[in-house]
């Protein structure tokens, strides 16, 4: 059987496949999860991923940019999968989600620092789940014998004895932190893995255009001000994915700078280049310098034998 290289697109997904006699590589973009942000296009080492703006239809809401992958360039490395903030891309080898780039430490994983304290959750499923704009929080209430119940039907004393179980779909979470703010204090802890700065140049931003707001997957990260009907940024919730930037009709109206990416430690040229594209050359060299000085400190420590300092 000759090598088969396949590409299929449906309304739900985009699928690329290499079918070899002994191996099968598959890449699937879940279009429902994909928000048309820029991260995979920048992270891809082969520049195989492109974004395409949908033509604007007057009077309708803007649509998120469409992602496309060039089958002739893609090598199924899985870097897009690893770096997607929304977990919309899935690369499998022989049906297994084991990525060689992670195994061989050629690319880091994003650190999604998310903690949920179930005790502090309100005893209201609706209220807790609705705060997440991406519906990633699932709350369930269990009685002592393990039965799932609806707390609204119970008496106050029974409610107090309920076990609260919180499931956060971390894999698909971009860590906007809305839940942290909207849920009772301490119920959720979310640390963003992407940090940076998003600002709107109000002089360039066209009057009445809400394209960025239309596509932003995080409710509240962008908002329309009452005073001048222009879009403003709430950086508290912005995840710096760039979905807004991808559809903005005016150059430089949106200014997006990513400054830091929270990731597992790695030593890889592919990551350095991805980092440079995702942030900037200065940010990359900053990270390299930090790494260098950490390494130097480590070797000095080894040589001098100051083991006690570790705890300090």
């Amino acid at each position, binding site marked *: *059987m*000759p*090598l*088969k290289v396949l590409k299929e697109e449906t309304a739900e997904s985009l699928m690329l496949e*290499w079918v*070899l*006699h*002994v*191996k099968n590589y598959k890449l699937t973009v879940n279009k429902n999860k994909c928000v048309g942000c820029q991260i995979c296009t920048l992270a891809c*080492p*082969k520049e195989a991923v492109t974004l395409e703006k949908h033509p604007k239809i007057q009077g309708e809401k803007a649509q998120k940019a469409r992602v496309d992958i060039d089958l002739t360039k893609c*090598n199924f*490395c899985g*870097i897009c999968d690893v770096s997607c903030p929304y977990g919309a891309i899935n690369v499998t080898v022989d049906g297994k989600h084991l990525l*060689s*780039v992670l*195994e*061989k*430490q*050629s*690319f880091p994983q994003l650190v999604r620092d998310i903690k949920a304290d179930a005790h502090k959750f309100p005893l209201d499923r609706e209220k807790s789940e609705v705060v997440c704009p991406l519906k990633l929080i699932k709350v369930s209430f269990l009685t002592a014998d393990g039965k799932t119940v609806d707390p609204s039907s119970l008496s106050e004393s029974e409610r107090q004895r309920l076990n609260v179980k919180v499931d956060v779909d971390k894999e698909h979470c971009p860590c906007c932190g809305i839940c942290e703010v909207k849920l009772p204090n301490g119920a959720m802890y979310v640390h963003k893995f992407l940090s940076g700065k998003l600002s709107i140049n109000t002089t360039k931003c066209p009057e009445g255009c809400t394209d960025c707001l239309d596509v932003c997957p995080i409710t509240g990260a962008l908002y329309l001000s009452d005073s001048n009907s222009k879009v403003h940024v709430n950086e508290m919730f912005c995840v710096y994915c760039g979905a807004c930037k991808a559809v903005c009709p005016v150059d430089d109206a949106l200014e997006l700078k990513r400054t830091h990416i929270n990731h597992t430690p790695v*030593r*890889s*040229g*592919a*990551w350095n*280049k991805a980092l440079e594209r995702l942030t900037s050359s200065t940010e990359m060299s900053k990270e390299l310098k930090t790494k260098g000085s950490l390494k130097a400190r480590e070797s000095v420590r080894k040589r001098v034998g100051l083991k006690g300092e570790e705890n300090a």
Partner: protein
Amino acid sequence: MPRRARKKAEAPEKEKRSRQTKPKAKAETPRIGVFVCQCGSNIASVIDVDALTKYAKTLRNVVHAENMNYPCSHEGQEAMIATIKGKKLNRVVVAGCSPRLYEPTFQRCVSQAELNPWLFEMANIREFASYCHQSTPAEATEKAKDTVRMAVAKARLLEPLKPIELPMAKKVMVVGGGIAGINAALDLADMGFKVYMVEKTETIGGYMALLDKTFPTLDCSICIEGPKMVDVGRHPNIEIISYADILKVDGYAGNFKVKVRKNPRYVIAANCTGCGECRDACPIEYPNYADMYLGVRKAISIPFGQAVPLTHTINRDYCIECYKCVDACGARQAINFDQKPEEVELNVGAIVVTIGYGMYNPKDLEWTGYGKFSNVFTALEFERLILAAGPTGGKVVRASDGQKPHSVAFIQCVGSRDINRYEYCSSFCCMYTLKHAVMLKEKYREAIEVYVFYNDMRSNFKGYEEFFNRAQKSGVKFIRVKLENRRITEDAQTKSLTVYGETEDGKPVSAEADMVVLANAAVPAETGREVARILNIPLGKDGFFVECQPKIRPTDTDVPGIFLAGACQGLKDIPYSVAQGSAAAAQAACVLSKDSWTVEPLVARVNEELCSGCGVCESACSYRAINVEKVGEKPVAKVVEGLCRGCGICSSACPMDAITMPNYSDNQILTQIQAVMEKRVRKRE
């Protein structure tokens, strides 16, 4: 310019004559001897040779004429030498067969009689008279007389020439590292010549290195080729230039100038030990050509374990530049991502072309279902399946479900022997199919059913018919079908296949098989056209290189110093490629062992005074043998003697009449024309 033009206008005849007949002025009066050949009955049965001889005696300056039976025989030559010496002949005409066949023989004879070999002329009265006018002997004799008269007329004006000696580079380039190239290279290197083996891919070995077993002995292919590959790699006289392209070849036998581009591997060959630690560290895989894309290799790797050289290569199309390989390589520092293509110039005396062949992709033959049905394979894919070192570890399994097939059907002549695709027979498919069938049958016995759908079984060399018998005895079912109306269908659920055919008497036959293997045509190498252009050697209609003479010069090309071996000349199997590799090596050694390369002096001569440097000759020449160069201020056409084939096109194209061909001067040709017209004119009067 005006002066020259005037000179030409005033006295062109005089000018030309004085130039062209200069040697004659000094030379003594011609004493011409005419030897008429009877050629058994080839000539004598049609032409009245006695009358012809008598006639020849009447021609001016002819002092001797005789007819002989075989002047080309040893006896004939001895007699001729005696006559030339005895009668003090200074011009010799042989009226016989074609100069293409026998001119060198008679020239040698003439020079043995201590006469300049270019004072010899041949009149072809066999092809031009006896063969083509068999029914009209009287007219044929008249025509023979005309031909002899022409030859004698030209003989009067012949000038003695000296052969041209050119320097000889005692090195050779072998293009392509398949089994034919390997043998040519080893033989030449053992003879003491420096060999450059230029290979396009990362490793030498060619197709043979990808095979599991070889027919008819069933010995392991790489086990017999591997040691030879290693020998090439280690031979002090051989330099392998792999992963390289030939950009340009200039020059001629004894002195070819070759420009080769070494493509970057991003690995420094001198530092790479072939340990493979980089390969283990690399996270990226891509489909491996050497596995016929059934399996994968790493972005930094070698195509197969026995590769020579063992230098790893980074495929930048797939590499993500994580530099894990750099870390793994460590202190050896063999990896260099900044490597650039490197151009090298080679100076070689001879070139052996062994670029091999390619395989036809049967995708466009719809009846095969190849590419559509997952359990239809090509023979080379099957070869990689059955190979222990292959991607499945030697397990023959189906692509659809990974299960072992219980029946396999082999289909012969897929693309070959098809006038709409490849008219020729691919020559080795019958035998490798027998090999595959026997291997399956002897390994799995009753557990597998093997069918061979064939039209003619071609097993015509040593041990091959016996192998066919062995296949029949082992229980392989041979089904003879017509090449038309074959088709394959697939069961959508089980993915098993049914092969349909039609016997010679029109009866339908079919067989069910879990797996189908196609004997797809072998085709000319993809690079054939490019190599032909660069080396200026002809390609045949079928896309394979054309040898100089199909029977007696099968390894020579039309270009002196360039030889052919292996499947690029015509499809052939391993033993014959090996033999031809050695044959081409011997031919190349005939060139290389000379201290200088002798060229016939029949090359264009440029009168630099007359030449205006217009360049018409340069564009007319098909051998790239004449170029306009500057001599001082003046541009002048210069002949590259090693390349000039003496065709005379430049001479006739030259608007200034500045180019002459020795012994084919205008004067000599006009005189011949006059001689042939003489009698006619007289008759008409």
